């Protein structure tokens, strides 16, 4: 009775389905490594170059010894009022871009939510439209709108609105799909019309979600708006390109510091508001 149970050769073969999975697992790793190797060539990635550059970086930051003031530091705030005005315009662009996106996004989200969409065709088409809107980068859209309506903040606002509408509509529709069906049924049972079910059954339930997602996108729109000026779509971005092209790195540094502070303030403020939502 002592050793008989463990004396024989145990069967170490895993069951067939598991074996197949293990093989697939190994193939997947081979595939991932192959993908990484493929992606390496053509990108001119070079770590030696990065480290060689790092040694010179203090020169970039603080300027050449023989040319004082040619680096990024100390920042040059002489044109502060102008930068501030442009920073505020950047934030204004984000505000209106986000608001227009909400106005566009709410009806789209109703059509793109499984439980409120009138039928599967509308649902699918709206979903594809939203994919399309999200797929268009703000930057690319800004280029298009600059051509369409001219230079300035307005094309920037339109670019933000279109891209964000796609994102918000998708997020809102997820909120709609998560509503409590009991509350909906109760509103329906009063004899309410489909529109009334939306305004009195669905809407009260998704308000916190809508506000929270809107603020979240507003934060990221402020960040996005800071670079739209690079393509002439208004805001502080134009001043970054202008100063860097003119080798006025100290001015660029001042602008970047202002952007960082503004983004930090906006994020903190909106995070506070979002925390208070119930």
């Amino acid at each position, binding site marked *: 009775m002592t050793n008989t149970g463990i004396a024989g050769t145990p069967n170490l073969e895993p069951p067939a389905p598991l074996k197949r999975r293990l093989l697939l697992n190994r193939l997947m790793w081979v595939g991932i490594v192959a993908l990484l190797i493929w992606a390496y060539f053509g990108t001119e990635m070079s770590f030696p170059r990065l480290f060689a550059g790092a040694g010179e970086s203090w020169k970039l930051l603080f300027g050449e010894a023989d040319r004082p003031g040619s680096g990024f530091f100390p920042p040059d705030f002489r044109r502060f009022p102008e930068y501030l005005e442009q920073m505020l315009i950047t934030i204004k662009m984000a505000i209106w871009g986000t608001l227009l996106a909400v106005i566009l996004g709410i009806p789209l989200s109703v059509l793109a939510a*499984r*439980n*409120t*969409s*009138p*039928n599967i065709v509308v649902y699918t088409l709206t979903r594809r439209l939203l994919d399309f809107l999200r797929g268009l980068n703000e930057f690319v859209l800004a280029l298009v709108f600059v051509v369409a309506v001219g230079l300035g903040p307005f094309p920037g606002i339109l670019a933000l609105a279109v891209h964000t509408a796609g994102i918000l509509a998708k997020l809102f529709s997820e909120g709609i799909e998560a509503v*409590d*069906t*009991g*509350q*909906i*049924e*109760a*509103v*329906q*049972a*009063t*004899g*309410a*019309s*489909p*529109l*009334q*079910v*939306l*305004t*009195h*059954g669905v809407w*009260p*339930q998704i*308000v*916190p979600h809508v506000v929270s997602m809107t603020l979240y996108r507003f934060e990221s729109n402020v960040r996005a708006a800071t670079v739209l000026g690079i393509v002439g779509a208004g805001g502080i971005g134009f001043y970054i390109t202008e100063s860097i092209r003119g080798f006025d790195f100290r001015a660029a540094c001042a602008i970047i510091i202002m952007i960082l502070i503004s983004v930090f303030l906006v994020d903190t403020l909106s995070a506070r508001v979002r925390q208070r939502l119930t």
Partner: protein
Amino acid sequence: MIRLEQVSHQFANGTRALSDINLALSGQDFTVLIGPSGAGKSTLMRVLNGLVRPKSGKVWIGDTEISRAPERVVRLERRRIGMVFQSFNLVKRLTALENVLLGRLGDMPGWRSTLRLYTKADRSLAMNTLERVGMADFAWQRADTLSGGQQQRVGIARALAQRPQLILADEPISALDPKSSEQVMELLRDIQKRDGIAVLTNLHHLDAVREYAGRVIALKSGSVFFDGSVQRLTDEITRDLYYGETADDSSSHAQSNVPALSTDNQTGSPSFLLE
């Protein structure tokens, strides 16, 4: 007067919910629906207010046949039938008063309701119904801050605000403690007696059935098993109802409760906006 003629229904997954139901609800009865879980009680209620379209048979609300009528017609009929739910189903982020005002939606044009422009008459009616259920002091409190019993009373006020001819109460007390249960049942009985509004409710506790019911309808496996005054409901009948064998007993026990409404429309479409 509400009549069901040879009403049968099965869900999209093939589960049989109701088979060949013939019923007439008239006058101002306090009718209690009993039967084991999955017998089709909740489905029957939702057939009565048109939230579920039966696969076959006819549903008459007064002179209107609603089982095949367009959604718009059904909606207009539905205004006269209030519904009270097991889980109260108040819109949680609205105040008690706003929840009662939901009962007025069916009689309001869309633009007015979207802007929340309730008429003075509607607001007075809502406040009066809250008073009627003893919840006027809580009118401005958000629904999710109320206790279960309080929420259910607001739910009843919402049904009353529709000025209904019939109130359907789907297991109104199964989520409540004994004291709240009693208050809610007393309230429903009082509404039926004083306001002359017919009440159809389903209950699980036979004590409550004997206490409150005038007429009892028992459903078993989707068919009417008993229909008569509560005095004729003997212990033998209830024993057979809940423990007795039937041909398709095993399948009836397998039935789940009513699935979410959004999936068992006549069309099988998941949308509640579908006209």
